């Protein structure tokens, strides 16, 4: 029997108050609960700890380190029926709710914090009836974690303490528990079954001592403030760490299945044998599993283990806190224990990324101190050695760099031409590097810089910056059958590729050239066109939108040429360059011929100023066209919402 009389009367038990209960009396309280409801709690099993049914209070084991699975399984079970239905009759659909009263005993504060996150997810927006039914009927008795698992790092995440989210919270202070009352339900419970007393000063000191001692048992240190993690991750999406770390990932899903803050699920229908009725069941699912992001048709948005691994860490450190305002990882360390290749621990990922970020910053700082790129904005002098009229609005300009060096361009790259007083403008290089050190630019007169250029004469000296951009992917094109489709001035960059292919003919398969112009008078590089037409090494097709009396060739827009060529979509890559309007129609035509998005390559024209990834004019979403482009596969563009 208690020595002291019960000194906390019913009414006096408010929430957030503390009191003390002897361990024996707590046992009695549990026995009373067992008579009234289902009681689950922490038990020892094979040297580990698990949540399981409790038939007698002495089965409980409350000085544990961590359980194999988290207690969240009682609120969001691994498999649960959402509703029952009759086949072919939606009016007969009935919701299935679990309204049984259940006490969950022994929940550590980090798991309470995880439950708070689930509350936010399942209650705050689009309230989830199944979760709410379980939550409302659950009594949560927490217990402070005084013997943390060696893999736990909850103090680093600030989740080793819980202020809310429990009905009662116990701290083991020897023969008794200090009890923090978290809710009216908790208070009522104590009033009904508990024999409690006011805490003495000694009790209060003891609680502080054991809690502080527990803190010293955490082996981990987060190397940056936890508030910095989201930004850190944002800046480290392309860090080499992800691929390296994920290389041993088994995609086994263990890390997400044992995590208290994971809540993704799958929904499946199960019908009875007679196929007359059935259930809709939800089952745990997780982003680490191969099929998680697969959509109908088989496309998988996170098809490789690196992107799945990164996505999970981003959820734990960034997405969840940004979306729900609660920690996405509570530092329980279960994933780290469960992961056989030992790669799943978020804190190790956060620290590694932090370190890599610091190293990158340090490298950047030392670069800044030692080297500036003077030539970044200062153009190289180049002499105009030839100008020739191509058509009504276009001229070709041949340049020679004054320093005597080759330009060093790849087909598809561009240069900035600088004319003091007028400014700069970007132009694709029209000659292949295989054609000597001089280079040519085809330029249409459309405005200030271009007009001034058109007024120049042989011998003038102006500035060149570049070459810039990625150019056509010559490695991808090697060995393939090539379908080059150019409209109007799109021929300027494509001409360089045609020259390159002719000079390295054996490196490529078939070369099918499809060119289109508005009218015969607007044709460009007519001598080249005539020579290619005769060349047995290429298959040449040309059309004009509108013919005239002298024109004997094809008439019609460029898409009308495509049905004229036969090609094998598995071996062929198409390169498409032309005015924006052309892309849509040409791409639609190519898709009909079953070319995949990876095998359709386009060169984009965007407004550009600096050419070196700074000024932002050419930016599409997060991509700078002057750096990562201007050449893209259609597959890359599909992810850029602003691209086409």
């Amino acid at each position, binding site marked *: 029997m208690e020595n002291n009389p019960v000194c906390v009367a019913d009414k006096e038990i408010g929430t957030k108050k503390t009191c003390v209960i002897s361990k024996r009396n707590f046992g009695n309280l549990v026995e009373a609960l067992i008579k009234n409801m289902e009681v689950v709690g922490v038990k020892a099993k094979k040297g580990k700890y698990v949540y399981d049914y409790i038939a007698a209070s002495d089965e409980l084991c409350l000085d544990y380190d961590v359980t194999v699975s988290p207690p969240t399984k009682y609120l969001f079970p691994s498999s649960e029926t959402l509703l029952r239905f009759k086949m072919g009759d939606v009016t007969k659909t009935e919701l299935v709710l679990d309204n049984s009263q259940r006490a969950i005993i022994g929940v550590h504060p980090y798991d309470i914090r995880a439950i708070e996150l689930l509350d936010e997810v399942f209650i705050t927006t689009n309230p989830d009836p199944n979760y709410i039914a379980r939550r409302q009927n659950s009594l949560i008795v927490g217990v402070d974690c005084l013997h943390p698992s060696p893999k736990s790092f909850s103090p680093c995440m600030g989740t080793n303490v819980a202020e809310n989210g429990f009905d009662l919270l116990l701290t083991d202070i020897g023969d008794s528990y200090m009890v923090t009352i978290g809710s009216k339900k908790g208070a009522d419970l104590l009033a009904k079954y508990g024999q409690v007393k006011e805490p003495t000063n000694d009790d209060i000191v003891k609680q502080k001592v054991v809690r502080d001692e527990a803190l010293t048992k955490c082996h981990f240190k987060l190397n940056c403030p936890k508030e910095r993690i989201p930004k850190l991750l944002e800046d480290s999406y392309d860090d080499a760490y992800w691929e390296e770390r994920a290389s041993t990932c088994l995609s086994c899903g263990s890390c997400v299945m044992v995590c208290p803050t994971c809540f993704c699920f799958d929904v499946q229908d199960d019908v009875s044998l007679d196929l007359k009725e059935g259930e809709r069941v939800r089952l*745990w699912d997780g982003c680490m599993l191969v*099929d998680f992001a697969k959509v109908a048709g088989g496309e998988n948005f996170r098809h490789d283990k690196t992107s799945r691994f990164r996505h999970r860490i981003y959820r734990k450190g960034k997405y969840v806190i940004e979306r729900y305002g609660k920690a996405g990882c509570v530092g329980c360390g279960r994933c780290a224990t469960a992961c056989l290749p030992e790669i799943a621990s978020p804190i190790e990922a956060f620290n590694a990324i932090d370190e890599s970020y610091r190293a990158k910053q340090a490298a950047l700082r030392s670069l800044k101190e030692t080297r500036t790129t003077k030539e970044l904005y200062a153009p190289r002098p180049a002499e105009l050695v030839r100008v020739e009229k191509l058509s009504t609005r276009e001229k070709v300009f041949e340049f020679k760099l004054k320093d005597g060096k080759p330009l060093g361009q790849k087909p598809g790259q561009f240069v900035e031409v600088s004319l003091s007083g007028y400014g700069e403008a970007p132009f694709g290089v029209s000659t292949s590097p295989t054609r000597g050190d001089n280079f040519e630019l085809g330029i249409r007169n459309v405005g200030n810089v271009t007009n001034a250029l058109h007024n120049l004469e042989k011998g003038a000296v102006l500035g060149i910056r570049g070459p810039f951009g990625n150019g056509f992917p010559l490695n991808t094109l090697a060995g393939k059958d090539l379908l080059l489709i150019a409209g109007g001035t799109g021929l300027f960059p494509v001409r360089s590729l045609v020259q390159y292919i002719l000079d390295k003919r054996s490196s490529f398969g078939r070369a099918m050239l499809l060119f289109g112009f508005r009218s015969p008078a607007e044709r460009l590089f007519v001598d080249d066109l005539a020579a290619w037409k005769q060349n047995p090494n290429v298959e040449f097709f040309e059309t004009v939108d509108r013919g005239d009396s002298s024109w004997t060739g094809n008439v019609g827009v460029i898409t009308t040429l495509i049905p004229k060529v036969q090609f094998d979509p598995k071996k062929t890559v198409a390169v498409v360059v032309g005015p924006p309007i052309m892309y849509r129609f040409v791409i639609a035509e190519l898709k009909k011929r079953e070319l995949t998005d990876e095998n359709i390559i386009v060169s984009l024209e965007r407004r550009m100023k600096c050419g070196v990834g700074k000024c932002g004019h050419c930016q599409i979403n997060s991509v700078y066209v002057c750096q990562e482009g201007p050449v893209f596969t259609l597959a890359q563009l599909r992810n850029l919402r602003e691209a086409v």
Partner: protein
Amino acid sequence: MKPKIAFFEFTSCEGCQLEVLNLSGEELLDLLGDVDIVNFREAITERADNYDIAFIEGSISREAEIPRLKAIREQAKIIVAIGACACIGGVNCLKNHLTMNQALQMVYGDSAKYYDTIPARPINAVIPVDYYIRGCPPLTSEFVKVTKSLLLGKKPEIPGHPVCTECKMAGNICVFELGKTCLGPVTRAGCKAICVSGGRHCWGCRGLVDEPNINSEEEVLKKYGLTVEQVVDKFKIYNTYSEVMR
């Protein structure tokens, strides 16, 4: 029209068919109400060659089985492989490590010369297979699930993830933590990790997942004390025929 179902058996112990018959009487009756079983050696005597769905058990390990299997493919609209032998070659493939003469000698002794045998292979090494009911023995519940899906005309939802996922869902303590080893991380789920739940570990009877990280699994097994030979032996039991073993 009720779909007509047939069961066929190649080189196997017939354990798979028995498992199907383990349905409770009521369940089986329900099933028979929706389908016509026209060919089922263990259960009925009459036979027909007119069927829509063929369930095939056992691996192919004799020359004469090949034309028979091809004939079934011609007839059936849907072919479902049942059991480890049919799906992945299974334990029958263990003999592939011997020369065929050695194998015959071991099994039949002096009468070996009367038999012919070829390296054992799963049925999809001979004909295209539509669906798989994996496991050794396969589970009644999964058989029922697949059959129901086929009757409803939908694609059966067969997990692509490894056994570990279901093992964790079941709340098991990982056997690696208890000093044992396991092929769960590379084996296709669907069995609800019954072996681990029952106190043992996974042997890999359901075959490998589509993209098994074999290197990593090997490293893990070695970290937990297995030698290279032991690792290979572990994989051999059910997955001799898989690409990783060749």
